């Protein structure tokens, strides 16, 4: 839905009479650009500090020499390779389970008529309000009983059944024409085959939208991983970064900025490359 997409050309009959012109356009553009500059300031500063020697961290001289030294120092100061791997395993594991569990549940809720369906749906939606963040104490205890503390599955488990994902897929499955379903059944397809051959392919945009939202959420998640991990082997990037920047490193802002950028880089690069898809998927996932 972003602007210069190859939409059918808006005809002159539908020109916007309230589009700002002349002075109004100048004022509006100036305001928007000033606010935008303010909004990127933290990121811009991080880039500045990361690519210049430490003595230029607070001195903004255009002729300051460039260096990648801060990145090498940050990379060497903490096991970031391991943190990256952990985060990658974590978000992949969560997404895979969320999609499988969500698809099965959504299919049952959207297209099966059975006893207790409405109760089940209400029980699922309860998670939208009681978010896992609020239940840290009790969930920690459960995982301790399962002897999973300090493992990657422990970070993933409370999130793999996602009410939001189930809800989103249910809405999408409900829009699939019943005739397609019936036709596949006449051909002799089993319910599972119908799901895989008819529903899943048609819901691809929803899967992509939900996937992006889920990956960015769990890439950035901090509190729960902080609680259940205490070793390098299981720590994701966010927790690793916090341990790194609050420990013996002191306040070496240049190195901290380099580490901060490294941590955010994959999502940031993905966002810059697929900006439109990212924004659209957030919209699609949000608007019901």
């Amino acid at each position: 839905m972003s602007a210069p997409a190859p939409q059918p050309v808006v005809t002159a009959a539908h020109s916007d009479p309230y589009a700002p012109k002349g002075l109004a356009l100048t004022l509006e553009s100036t305001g928007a650009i000033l606010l935008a500059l303010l909004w990127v300031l933290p990121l811009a500063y991080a880039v500045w500090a990361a690519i210049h020697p430490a003595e230029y961290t607070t001195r903004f001289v255009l002729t300051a020499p460039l260096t990648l030294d801060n990145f090498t120092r940050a990379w060497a100061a903490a096991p970031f390779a391991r943190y990256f791997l952990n985060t990658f395993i974590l978000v992949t594991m969560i997404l895979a389970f969320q999609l499988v569990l969500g698809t099965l549940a959504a299919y049952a809720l959207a297209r099966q008529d059975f006893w207790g369906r409405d109760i089940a749906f209400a029980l699922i939606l309860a998670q939208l309000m009681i978010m896992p963040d609020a239940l840290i104490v009790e969930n920690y205890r459960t995982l301790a009983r399962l002897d999973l503390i300090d493992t990657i599955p422990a970070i993933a488990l409370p999130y793999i059944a996602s009410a939001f994902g189930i809800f989103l897929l249910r809405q999408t499955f409900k829009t699939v024409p019943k005739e397609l379903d019936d036709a596949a059944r006449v051909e002799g397809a089993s319910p599972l085959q119908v799901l895989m051959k008819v529903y899943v392919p048609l819901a691809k945009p929803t899967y992509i939208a939900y996937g992006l939202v889920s990956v960015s959420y769990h890439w950035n998640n901090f509190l729960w991983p902080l609680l259940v991990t205490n070793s390098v082997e299981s720590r994701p990037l966010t927790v690793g970064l916090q341990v790194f920047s609050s420990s013996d490193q002191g306040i070496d802002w240049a190195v901290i900025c380099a580490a901060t950028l490294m941590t955010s880089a994959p999502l940031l690069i993905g966002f810059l490359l697929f900006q439109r898809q990212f924004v659209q998927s957030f919209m699609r996932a949000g608007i019901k």
Partner: protein
Amino acid sequence: MNSRATATVHGWLLLLPAMACLALFTHWPAVATLVESFYSTPKARRPARFVGLDNYEQLLADPIFWKAMSNNLWFALGTIPTSIALALLMAVWVNDKIVGRTWVRMAFFTPTILPMIAVANIWLFFFTPQYGLLEQIVGLFGGRSTNWLGSQDTALAAITVVAIWKEAGFFMIFYLAALQALPPSLGEAAAIEGASRWTYFRRIQFPLLMPTTLFVLINAVINAFRMVDHIFVMTRGGPDNATTLLLFYIYQVGFSFWDTAYAATLTCVLLALLALVAFVQYGILERRTHYR
């Protein structure tokens, strides 16, 4: 077995994996938390025993709890209206054909996808006394040096600003989607009637955006009680609990002091607040919101 029974078995089998996880990590812990709030914290020599409302009495008499509650309310009051108003302004701006629109929209949305824990490091530097960026700017205009995060008066405001910065661009996306879904004929009709740009916004666009505002509002309220990541980096609840929010206090009580029963009691308060939000959403606002 008749077909109805077969369908029920099929349906529940499909739901089983998701429901099992939800029961284990949402329903059961919610009930267990409520039960535990009526018991004492088990110690090495003394197992948990039923104490009735003792934990709640302790809570009512706990000045840190009241501090966390009032901080959280101020935090909510500071973030919710400001981030929603900014989001609406941003959306109206990037919906118009302004100069550098793609770039501006990207700038607004970027904070959303950055890890809060990572950007909190940068904000920490901004607020650093003596040589931080804010300090340098204030110094440029001859202002006095302030320890933004170290002072009781400014610490909560400082973390509120970071939250607004993080959220406004996220909410903008929903307003933008809603604005673009409004039929252009509305604008034409209003223009023929001679309505000004401001009247068109106030009387037509804004009322039609009410469902979006409601959606964004619910999200903003939930986030106000959930957003604590930056506190870990920037203040750790200090100075003297000036930035302790409810969830951060639950974390401290549960995982620093290991007083699990009292943490459960605090969690019940948080859950009650969230239930209230849900009740308001479905009970009152939903009925009064104007849907197209």
